């Protein structure tokens, strides 16, 4: 008698046909795309406003130094007093007034420049203005010291140590970050999946208890099979939902951007803009490095292990939720368990980002890449640095064995939980039960 496919099928259909599940499946992408569209639209609105800034430059050092940009216009108001300039700026509802007084030395300038405005100005605008002033002042100071600024620029050398393994494989410093990315992505995906579907598994395990069908079911099926069926069935439903989400979001965002002309991918933050503004020419080099690095990564190994560790990690955490579901009588008892379960995963991420990057093959990294609750993240971060296959397989074996052990343990709790009549079982009894 093979009950497992039967149970999986029932759990799957039960989830997929559930009205709230269907509603969420179709509503979530609409809401998500809606929010993105809104954000994109709003930031476009924001970007379209052109701010004018009056510049009162009494030092007369910055004439024609401020270049107009798409969103920023500089207007020279030289020749009038500060008071008049302020009044003028206010009356004409101009964004702000930049006041550069005449000072004795250049050094005094740094203290003396003032920006007047109605509200506090945005970081991007101030950044742009300060940049311009600093550059100009630096050049002036160098020239005052009798040095040609252009010469200095020409003399600068960018040191980029080339890294190479003994096997002759080229790597780069940049690679370390890139290498951690796989583990990080796995970690975040796990996180998302568990947060969305862990609770669903838990509820599904409680279902038999609340509908009081438990004795009928348990007299036909082994609890272990029931729990496994629930974990797999719910997971399949989750994957279905996830795929629908991805497809729907792609379709919707394409549709919206083509209809309304709003590019949802163009959502960018001011910080990003500042970074892109400040990128130096070596960024070209960086991009080639990234591709070089990608080529050097054991892509096939990573992909396969990514799948295995992701699935294993997910199943393990899912089985923990199932165990909680097995131990409690009603859903109200479960809320507090949601977060603590995720803590080891968060720990794994931190270990990955702080320890693995320091020393990918150190003791801490090694240990955490075997501990099943953290290994899905840590091992995936270590693999790009080169981990022998037997270690990877050992870690996987531990991961899946722990998953089975958790399900087995949950099944025991499940069975005992129904029959204990609310009495706390003694340890002796638990051991006895575990043997049954």
């Amino acid at each position, binding site marked *: *008698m093979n*009950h497992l496919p*039967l*149970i999986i099928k*029932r759990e799957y259909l*039960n989830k997929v*046909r*559930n009205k709230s599940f269907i509603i969420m499946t179709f509503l979530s992408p609409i809401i998500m795309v809606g929010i993105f569209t809104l954000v994109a639209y709003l930031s476009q609105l924001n970007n379209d406003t052109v701010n004018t800034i009056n510049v009162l430059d009494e030092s007369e050092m910055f004439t024609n130094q401020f270049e107009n940009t798409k969103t920023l216009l500089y207007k020279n108001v030289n020749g009038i007093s500060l008071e008049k300039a302020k009044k003028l700026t206010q009356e004409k509802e101009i964004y702000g007034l930049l006041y550069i007084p005449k000072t004795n030395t250049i050094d005094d300038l740094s203290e003396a420049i003032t920006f007047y405005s109605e509200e506090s100005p945005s970081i991007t605008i101030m950044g742009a203005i300060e940049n311009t002033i600093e550059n100009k002042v630096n050049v002036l100071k160098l020239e005052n010291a009798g040095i040609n600024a252009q010469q200095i620029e020409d003399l600068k050398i960018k040191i980029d140590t080339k890294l190479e393994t003994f096997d002759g494989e080229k790597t780069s410093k940049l690679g370390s970050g890139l290498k951690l990315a796989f583990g990080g992505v796995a970690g975040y995906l796990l996180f998302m999946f568990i947060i969305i579907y862990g609770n669903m598994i838990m509820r599904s395990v409680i*279902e038999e208890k609340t*509908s*009081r*069908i*438990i*004795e*009928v*079911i*348990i*007299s*036909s*099926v*082994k609890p272990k099979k029931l729990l496994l069926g629930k974990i797999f069935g719910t997971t399949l439903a989750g994957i279905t939902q996830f795929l629908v989400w991805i497809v729907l979001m792609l379709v919707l965002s394409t549709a919206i951007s083509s209809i309304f002309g709003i590019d949802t991918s163009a959502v960018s933050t001011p910080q990003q803009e500042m970074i892109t503004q400040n990128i130096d020419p070596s960024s070209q080099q960086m991009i080639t490095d990234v591709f070089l690095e990608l080529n050097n990564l054991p892509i096939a190994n990573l992909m396969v292990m990514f799948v295995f560790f992701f699935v294993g990690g997910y199943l393990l955490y899912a089985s923990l939720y199932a165990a909680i579901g097995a131990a409690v009588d009603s859903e109200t008892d479960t809320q507090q368990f949601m977060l603590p379960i995720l803590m080891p995963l968060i720990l794994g991420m931190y270990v990955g980002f702080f320890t693995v990057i320091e020393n990918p093959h150190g003791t801490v990294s090694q240990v955490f890449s075997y501990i099943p609750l953290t290994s899905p993240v840590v091992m995936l971060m270590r693999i790009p640095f080169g981990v022998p296959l037997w270690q990877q397989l050992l870690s996987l074996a531990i991961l899946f064995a722990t998953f089975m052990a958790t399900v087995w343990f949950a099944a025991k709790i499940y*069975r005992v939980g*129904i*029959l*204990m*009549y609310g*009495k*706390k*079982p*003694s340890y002796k*009894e638990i051991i006895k039960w575990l043997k*049954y």
Partner: protein
Amino acid sequence: MNNLLVASNISKSFGEFKALNNVSIKVPKGSIFGLLGPNGAGKTTLIRIVNQITMPDVGEVILDGKPLQPKDIQHIGYLPEERGLYKSMKVGEQAMYLAQLKGLSKSQAKERLKYWFQRLEIEGWWDKKIQELSKGMAQKIQFVVTVLHQPKLLIFDEPFSGFDPINANLIKDEIINLKNEGATVIFSTHRMESVEEMCDHIALINKSNKILDGKLIDIKRAYKSNTYKVGLLPNNSEKLEILLKEKFEIKPTSFKTINKESQYNIKINEGDSVNDLVSYLTTLGQLTHFEEVIPSVSDIFIETVKNNK
């Protein structure tokens, strides 16, 4: 082997609480076996042990000559007292699912479900959700699911709760019918009149111990008190009672008749002949009613449990 199920020396504790203490029962093949006892006596624990939901601390269960095994669940149909169905599933789908869990193939399950749904006149429910049904209606589905895989052993824990008298009768007839087709039934209930009507054997459990078991008719024989219910139109109504009291232990009683006779329960001594009583009674007047008082299951239940205290 005349016994389908033999449970010997079963003990089971939950923590400090002893739910079953050295209980043994034998359920003969093809019988309806009444498992009786006050609330909390341990009946459900015993039933769960037979269903392998829980495991005895001590003791052994033998089904059809062999120790009970996990795969035996397909030979057992169990209707627990705590029962329910998946609320959001459709009736037909759910019945198919539960039937397949018991080892039926899809086509078998469908065929038999059709038969039973027709038999109980519930064909129209196939596509309804359980939450749309009343409790009694859901119980019917539950009954069908319990018997569908034609198990050798059927265990019903309070099968009639939630049924109106008509449906209770319907289910009762179905149970008797199943027994006639060869199934063995264990039947746990507090409704003594159905025990009276249906059971061949009973076991009485009180405070974790079995205090009585055997064929119902033997038990009744053992519990009879040589008492007879008598109706008499006396020749001399004033002297009648005095005369009777001289010879027997009597108690006034009452039952419905069409005469205005004197009515007594008369107990004769062990070894005395019933014929002597009858011939003596005829000398006192016209005998209109004579009946042996047979103890009811309810009486036996109450008496044994009281004496067990």
